[in-house]
């Protein structure tokens, strides 16, 4: 079995299923992030105006 297949199987067995666990996990992972400027991460908080447009696209995966 390839690494990708092993990881796919393992990921499906280790799905995080609760909001509280997600909040706790985000805190833990944020604590070990290197201290860097914004440019090192691509995602951020969403501040979307009401007139912002959302274009639905087909799934990529």
């Amino acid at each position, binding site marked *: 079995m390839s690494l990708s297949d092993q990881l796919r199987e*393992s*990921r499906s067995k280790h799905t*995080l*299923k609760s909001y509280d666990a997600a909040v706790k996990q985000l805190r833990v992972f944020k604590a070990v992030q290197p201290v860097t400027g914004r*440019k090192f991460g*691509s995602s951020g908080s969403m501040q*979307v105006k009401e007139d912002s447009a959302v274009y639905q*696209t087909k799934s990529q*995966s």
Partner: protein
Amino acid sequence: MWFQPETDTYLKVTWPDFFGMLVLHRQDEEEQASPIAYLERWHLHNELFGDRVRFVGVLEEDGRLRLVIQQRAIEGEPATLEQINDFFTGNGWQRFMANGEVAYFDPKRQVAISDTHRGNIILMDDGLLAPIDLRVQPLNGALLDYVIKACRKP
């Protein structure tokens, strides 16, 4: 980033007109990834690391674009740097330095990854590591030659 309990996924939205950094870039190129490079990165991430990241869509904000993806949430703890290095080198990736940062190269697929810090890799309880947010970049031409040489350096 938002957890969505109905699907056990995180929704991630890029900063406006910012789609992450490349692992490597030529001197005459931008160091920031294009929207297409950002999507290619997630496509490769799915292929290499068994993830199921979905492209959800595009937000337009004051004429600037934000890309939205959905990623399954994985239970686990941050892997150690030693575990991370062992995981990649044990699975055929060659370590090199890119702009002062640790990076890895897969000579079979000719793909480079970086941003492999502890906050981006989850140790699952079966011992496998689940990368969740790496820079992933296919290489060719001069960049490929550069990385092949960099991997030979002790």
